[in-house]
């Protein structure tokens, strides 16, 4: 009996809930850690990026006004669907990152658990970060955290899945929408994650994942007037300076990130979530 010829997949972008090729028609070869060919990935262009920002902006009113309970369930659903694809993720992570199967499996487990961690946050954020303000006057004053808007994310270059999830999940948990540029050399787990997102009730456009180069797409993301915040993790330290300068043109919130990728297995704190939240203070007089 001869071995079956497997069905090879064409890897595409994830944009507005659909899987288009790059409008530029460009692709680039993706290899495993030893240099063997794995696939051609779509090489996203400036136009793809702008389309992704439009999609994210369009999705923002729906996602940001969904109940926290609903958002939590959607993020938990992402974990559920990932769980069903553990083997596929482990294979891709092992190939991309050049690590042993056991290690890759533990990374996939941690990535799934990270969705669960953030899923549980959605309906606690307002109680932990909001407040009833004891103002000195006859007013009821309260402060609620609200999502900042569209967040541009340059995903980590090394950690192809756990790092990716750790930077994307807090954006979605906050109620913001995301335009994410994956690791350039290790994009396959990101593409597979987008297939998970597409089948997990994440509304179209809420998360948009582009494969391509942070150095090429980052400046457009940083200067785009309809992007509210920027996570420059996937850029080089030198590029982060120019990206932060570009971001100043529209007063973007720019995440402060370490020069080298942190230990992604560590439990996150609230710093990423906080960066994507705006405090809104509401006042009303008391009286009869």
């Amino acid at each position: 009996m001869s071995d079956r010829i497997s069905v090879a997949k064409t890897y595409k972008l994830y944009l507005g809930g659909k899987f288009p090729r790059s409008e530029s028609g460009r692709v680039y070869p993706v290899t495993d850690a030893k240099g063997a060919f794995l696939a051609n990935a779509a090489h996203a262009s400036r136009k793809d990026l702008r389309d992704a920002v439009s999609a994210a902006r369009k999705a923002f009113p729906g996602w940001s006004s969904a109940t926290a309970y609903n958002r939590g369930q959607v993020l938990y659903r992402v974990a559920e669907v990932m769980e069903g694809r553990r083997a596929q993720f482990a294979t891709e992570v092992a190939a991309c990152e050049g690590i042993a199967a056991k290690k890759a499996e533990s990374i996939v487990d941690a990535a799934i658990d990270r969705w669960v961690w953030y899923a549980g946050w959605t309906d606690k954020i307002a109680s932990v970060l909001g407040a009833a303000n004891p103002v000195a006057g006859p007013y009821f004053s309260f402060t609620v955290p609200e999502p900042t808007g569209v967040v541009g994310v340059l995903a980590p270059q090394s950690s192809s899945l756990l790092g990716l999830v750790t930077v994307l999940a807090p954006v979605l948990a906050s109620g913001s929408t995301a335009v994410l540029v994956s690791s350039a050399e290790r994009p396959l787990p990101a593409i597979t994650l987008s297939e998970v997102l597409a089948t997990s009730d994440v509304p179209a456009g809420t998360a948009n994942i582009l494969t391509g180069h942070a150095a090429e797409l980052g400046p457009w993301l940083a200067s785009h007037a309809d992007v509210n915040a920027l996570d420059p993790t996937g850029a080089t330290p030198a590029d982060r300076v120019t990206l932060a300068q570009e971001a100043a043109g529209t007063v973007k919130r720019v995440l402060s990130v370490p020069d080298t990728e942190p230990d992604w297995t560590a439990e996150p704190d609230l710093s990423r979530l906080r960066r994507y939240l705006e405090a809104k203070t509401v006042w009303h007089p008391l009286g009869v």
Partner: protein
Amino acid sequence: MGIFDYAPAPESRALANLKEHYKPFINGQFVDGSGEPLKTINPATEETLAEVGTASVSDVDTAVKAARKAYTSVWSKMPGAERAKYLFRIARLIQERSRELAVLETLDNGKPIKESRDSDVPTAAAHFFYHAGWADKLGYAGYGPDPKPLGVAGQVIPWNFPLLMLAWKIAPALATGNTVVLKPAETTPLTALVFAEICQQAELPPGVVNILPGAGDIGASLVAHPDVDKIAFTGSTEVGKLIQRTVAGTRKKLTLELGGKAANIVFDDAPLDQAVEGIVNGIFFNQGHVCCAGSRLLVQESVAGEVLEKLRYRVSTLRVGDPLDKNTDLGAINSAEQLAKIRGLVESGDAEGAQRWTSPCPVPDRGFFFAPTVFSEVHQSMRIAREEIFGPVLSVLTFRTPDEAVAKANNTPYGLSAGIWSEKGSRILWTANQLRAGVVWANTFNRFDPAAPFGGYQESGFGREGGRTGLEGYLDV
């Protein structure tokens, strides 16, 4: 004078204890700055109030070194409970010297004495009192068990609320264990230098607070100084962007409180007389020199005529004149430059086809004054609907549905504040939820409290001042 006219009721200028010369405050001492001295004037009379020594770039460096030394050797080592007591002392000293500070503020800034006396100075004291209590309770603020300060904070503040903005900046910085180099605005340095005296009276350790009068170049050099860990700025969006660009890629933590173009939305079920009071307060408080001023009035079409009529009547009763008079509602515009800017934007409103109405109130011949002005038939594309005027000029637009009101309110790159007037609770809460602004006042306007976080969305800046949220900007978290 008619039988129901107000008699003059001026507050005594002598209360300000005005001196001929003021000096920069570095390392606990008043020193001769090596910058070119500036003359600060009373915008209500255009007379020189005092000569103020300014800092040079080398003074900035000296002040940062003093702040660094105070940080490492004293302030960061001091238990929070002890830091707190210094802040409490400062709060009390501000209260004790409140009349002096109010009169001085009014002389230097041009704002009515009733506002400096009843709002600026007491709220400044309240900020120190509030933050004093945090100094030994930071572990309960939600940033981990033992959040650390950043180090030296460089702070640059505007001229519209000179002492109050100083308090918004210095109180949280000191409470969290940072030391400060602050540059007051070029046209309003005096109360900051009296505050420096208060620091001496409170026996605050030298170098913990340094005050450097000067122009924009001194602010820029403070922002760019390599040994500053934190920058806090309140001012225009234009300058805020430059600062963000300067700080980009450095380890400095940045908070910005920038411009605004707030929508004040009046629904058809609003209590119209109360709403009119709120509209007036929203735009004419402090001559409209307020970043969160309700400068775009959005009125539901069905009540627009009635609201405009009531509004014009009410505005025509506002008294413009001597800021030291206790009956004055609108004082002087802070500078000739600002007055020119306001005039330019008002002319653009005329040119673009809006209908201008100006209060017939008498306006003094001398000094920088601008009569309250209301533009109707304003469209969203006009400059007076898009740009921050920072003066007593209101632009009135109309809407038909709540959705349209929200769409128009949010149609701005800013997002600092907004107002809602309605008697219907669910509509207020729905609207408050939809507005992309950091502060929403419903059936009130321009309320401030140290316990209530304040700050903007989008190009109105980032970070908050006040409340538990406001501590984050001064902590290494």
